[in-house]
């Protein structure tokens, strides 16, 4: 496989993007793990802010990150609300909505904020990884870290399907609205939505299958044979990159240690 494929970065102007792919992947994934396991809300908040600072160094528009994170952030807020009203024994305040009575608890608030910040931090770290590191590099690193091949292959497949589904959805949406010449009833809209939804899946499956066959034809071993890492991954990590990586990774590791000490 061509060396340049693995050396390529999404934004070569950024010093973070220029780091070795293995170093970046380990660093960002440590950040994801740290975000998921810290037990103090302020540590989760610090990790989230750190991930935002890292993203800013990549020099992408914040809009791109916002688009990618809007759904997980929505889920994080939903989790906060659910935990707030269902967890704990010390009431903070109560709301009466028609026949329903909701009580917010102190424990629910602190636990909900912690979980929400953990989700937000983890997805921001993962987002920064996706913006700074080509997927092949990240997957090869996971493979090199001896993660089960099934897990890596599933991650690979998911990545491929997500991009194809997104592309197919855009094209079908264009085709649909280009033929919408009047106000549709709610039923008509729901019917069209259902049809497009199912067709997006079928068309994407079909396209993914063709891409998979093209990958096989170019030597992809689908995890069933002995996987040979690409040439780039057989070379040692440049020592400067390694030093930077250790320094950077020390921060999320320190957060994990700190959260168990305090």
């Amino acid at each position, binding site marked *: 496989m061509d060396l340049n494929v693995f050396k390529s970065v999404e934004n070569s102007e950024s010093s973070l993007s220029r780091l070795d792919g293995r170093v970046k992947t380990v660093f960002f994934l440590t950040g994801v793990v740290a975000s998921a396991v810290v037990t103090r809300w302020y540590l989760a908040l610090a990790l989230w802010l750190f991930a935002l600072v890292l993203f800013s160094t990549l020099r992408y528009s914040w809009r791109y990150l916002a688009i990618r994170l809007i759904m997980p952030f929505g889920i994080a807020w939903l989790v906060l609300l659910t935990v707030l009203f269902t967890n704990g024994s010390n009431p903070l305040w109560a709301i009466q909505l028609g026949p329903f009575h909701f009580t917010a608890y102190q424990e629910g608030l602190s636990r909900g904020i912690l979980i929400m910040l953990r989700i937000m931090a983890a997805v921001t770290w993962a987002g920064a990884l996706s913006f700074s590191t080509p997927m092949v590099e990240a997957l090869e690193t996971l493979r090199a870290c001896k993660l089960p091949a099934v897990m890596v292959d599933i991650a690979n497949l998911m990545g491929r399907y997500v991009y194809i589904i997104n592309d197919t959805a855009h094209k079908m949406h*264009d085709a649909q609205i280009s*033929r919408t010449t009047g*106000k549709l009833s709610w039923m008509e809209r729901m019917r069209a939505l259902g*049809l*497009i939804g199912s067709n997006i899946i079928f068309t994407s499956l079909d396209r993914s299958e063709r891409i998979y066959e093209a990958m096989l034809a170019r030597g992809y071993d689908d995890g069933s044979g002995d996987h040979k890492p690409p040439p780039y991954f057989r070379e040692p990590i440049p020592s400067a990159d390694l030093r930077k990586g250790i320094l950077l990774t020390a921060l999320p590791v320190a957060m994990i240690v700190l959260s168990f000490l305090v």
Partner: protein
Amino acid sequence: MSLIDVQNVAYAYRGGVDALKGVSLQVEKGERIAILGPNGAGKSTLFRLLNGLLLPTAGTVAIDGLPVERKNFHKIRARVGMVFQDSDDQLFNSTVRQEVAYGLAGRKLSDAERDDTVEWALSVAGISGYGKRSPHNLSGGEKKRVALASVLAMKPDVLVLDEPTAALDPHGVTSIIRLLNEINQELGITLIFASHDTDVTPLLADRVLLMHKGEVVLAGTTAEVFQKRDVVRSIGLRLPRVAHLAEILARDCGLEVDELPLTIGQAREFFRHHCTSRRS
């Protein structure tokens, strides 16, 4: 007033890629226009502006005097039918009949009127017996006809076709060309198509707009544009094969050629004329 009036249109994609830079185009009713250009010339972007799928970052687009703006989208889309390059992206209903009827959903038509319109569109597209079939199980040429029928059912004034002959076998190409010319001549529908297939263009276009890197580099009748061989070649396109062959033969035989033939019919006349004069 032109049917389509594009004035100094520019469009930049997110990230600052300038897809169109000051493009102007006027199209009259019943015309057949080819937009030729290599990949990345801005053809598809221009088409999306005509249907309101995109709004220009500068300049104006109007269809029969109606500006392409958000408030006019439904009216614009009823008048400008768009056939996408890949029919698989356009067809999403479970039967051909439902697919063709989709564009009529927002109109106040009785069931009988809707059925009649669907039948009419299917027959014009030459797929009358296909109503109950799934569009996904058809051949490439048949899918293209279904895509065409689904737009024709809306009775548009203009058909905008992105690469109408791409990925079709030779028989499919011939039959789509014939069908599009019939639609133009019998129904008076204006045709605008994008292509980089220069062999198809003389069979389907009266006028040609040559685009390169978001700009119009040459415009004129099909014959006028293809006589500017250097310009055509400089943007990475080629002459129609018939014209290229005639150019080589004329050069080998030392003939002075004013106008190269662009189709087989024109080539026959061209060679008959020159052979007769040589013999005499």
